[in-house]
């Protein structure tokens, strides 16, 4: 049972992120929602690769151990984190530009494009 707790955490973080994106009205909070979504995806990958009692997946450092943690999800997560960093930086800079143009962060007022 406790082995599944991380997956529960993934689910909770995922839905928190989705909630923030769908229902929050402040752009910064939407950005936080997106980073939460990224965090849940990364956590999901890491948890998938975890083996109870496993050691680090580096052959020269692991020593005499039976099981190692899976290395592939860690590589995938590193890539995803780097990509997430680029997206977050761009997201925040666009929010900055939007604030400069519209003078507000409220999504209800930033809507010149419609119809």
């Amino acid at each position, binding site marked *: 049972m406790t082995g599944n707790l991380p997956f529960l955490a993934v689910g909770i973080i*995922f839905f928190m992120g989705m909630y923030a*994106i769908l229902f929050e009205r402040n*752009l910064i909070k*939407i950005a936080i929602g*997106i980073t939460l*979504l*990224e965090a*849940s*995806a990364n956590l*999901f*990958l890491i948890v*998938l*690769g975890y083996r109870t009692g496993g050691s680090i997946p580096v052959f020269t450092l692991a020593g005499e151990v039976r099981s190692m943690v*899976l290395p*592939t*999800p860690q590589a*995938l997560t590193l*890539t*995803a984190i780097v*990509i997430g960093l*680029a*997206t977050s930086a*761009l*997201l925040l800079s*666009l*929010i900055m*530009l*939007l604030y400069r*143009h*519209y003078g507000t962060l409220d999504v209800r007022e*930033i*809507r*010149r*494009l419609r*119809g």
Partner: protein
Amino acid sequence: MNWQIHLPALVLAVPLLGAFASPVAGLGGRATRNAWMIFISVLTTAVCIMLWQKVIAGGTAVYVMGAEAWNITLPSGLSWPVRIILEVDAFSAFMAVVGSIAALAGAFFSLRFMDRFTGLEKFSALYFLLVTGMLGMQLTGDLFNFFVFLEIASVASFGLIAFWRDRPEAVEASFKYMVISTISAMFILIAVGFFYGRYNAVNIAAVARMLQMGYAEKIALVFLVVSLAMKCGAVPMHMWTPDAYAEAPAGVTCLLVAVSQASLYGLFRVCFSLYGASLGSTVVPWTIIVMGVLSMFIGVTMAVIQKEIKRLMAYHSVSQIGYILMALGVGLLALRDPQAMADYGFTAMKGGIFHIINYTMYKGLLFLTAGAVFYSAGSRNLNELGGLARVMPQTTFMFVIAAAAIAGLPPFNGFVSKLLIYQSTFAVYPLLAVAALVTSVLTLASFVKVFQTAFLGPAKKTYENVTEVPASMLLGMSLLTIVIIALTLFPGWTLSHLVEPAAKALVDQAGYISAVMGGGL
């Protein structure tokens, strides 16, 4: 003479080099920068066409990145692939050729169109990054790699849509697109996680060979279908399309059209090659068909009432995506039944794939003509424009060809693919064909409106001094026009040489798997 085996990698390396060397070329001034942009675009197109020829002649091409040898997909006798593998079958190569032609036309057009603005070396860097992302999505045989290229394409397109960052609308459109595509990218990553958790593999062929429908696979399928439909702009996730297409510079919009096709490619790669016959029920095919019908109809009805020329065309993209979704959904429906496949399924697939090339060509051309009108007349509002046929005859001519093609007037290429779609969908459910026909009529109506208000009518005082656009912009437009006319004149050749191999490759799941995993399913 064996450099040709490296073609799959070259297709990605050339635009990537183009992107990162663009700032360096920008140091040499305007002429160097422009020459570099054209050189890389032409080279990319040439490499894509060579790759397509190689795939047609020699079957599915596989390329292993970072290995001692390019073709050892299963090193040291392992039974699963461990490296990133590019896998190019006829469908991927077809999509790459279509995308690179659109990118070439957009590059020619952008030379003069963007000339009034600063930061152009950054523009061309982002432009080639977007090309790399698009081609990467189409060539990769690895799910996680697909996610990476999707993110490369997304990040580059955020920058390009918001290129005119002094326009609030552009930044707003870019933000909307960004939220949508980041969510869809994360959904894809979660789906990749599900596959990895179940099968310890992220290679499409490896996963496809082991795939057995269970809860995890169903959840992953939902994530993948939703996110890729979101990225290609199908109703009900279409709200970013009109904003992003209308606010991006015209040359970029031409490329964005091709990039949305890459998401569409991903959707069908997942449905046909990854899941294939193990999809089981008819829920997913019907979801795709219903999404297609809704996109066709809602897209075109929203387009009819638009007053802004690029926004109108963007809503038409939603509706044209609907045709492709519907046709390939019908193909997916017939996948498990050889009789149905022979009766109507394969015709639908051919129609859908033919529509992909037609749509990319004429939609790209329409956006370029809209850009040309904006460049010369300085307005995109149909209430202000008028009488432009007198001052911009070449642009008008190309607009008429593209509009006739999108409306499906015989004998243009749009007619051929639409006819194939009508025929095959009628066999499944007659109402589908009716919806497609009504959409086609409404498409014609709205383009007659654009033609009549913007190009015909008395000459307006405000547009007396308007002149035809510069030669390089005309060159970009005429490239697409020539492709449209060629497709119009030789539909038989196109169907048998371009479209049929692609459709066959898409249906042939066993072939896709055995190219990586070796014989024996």
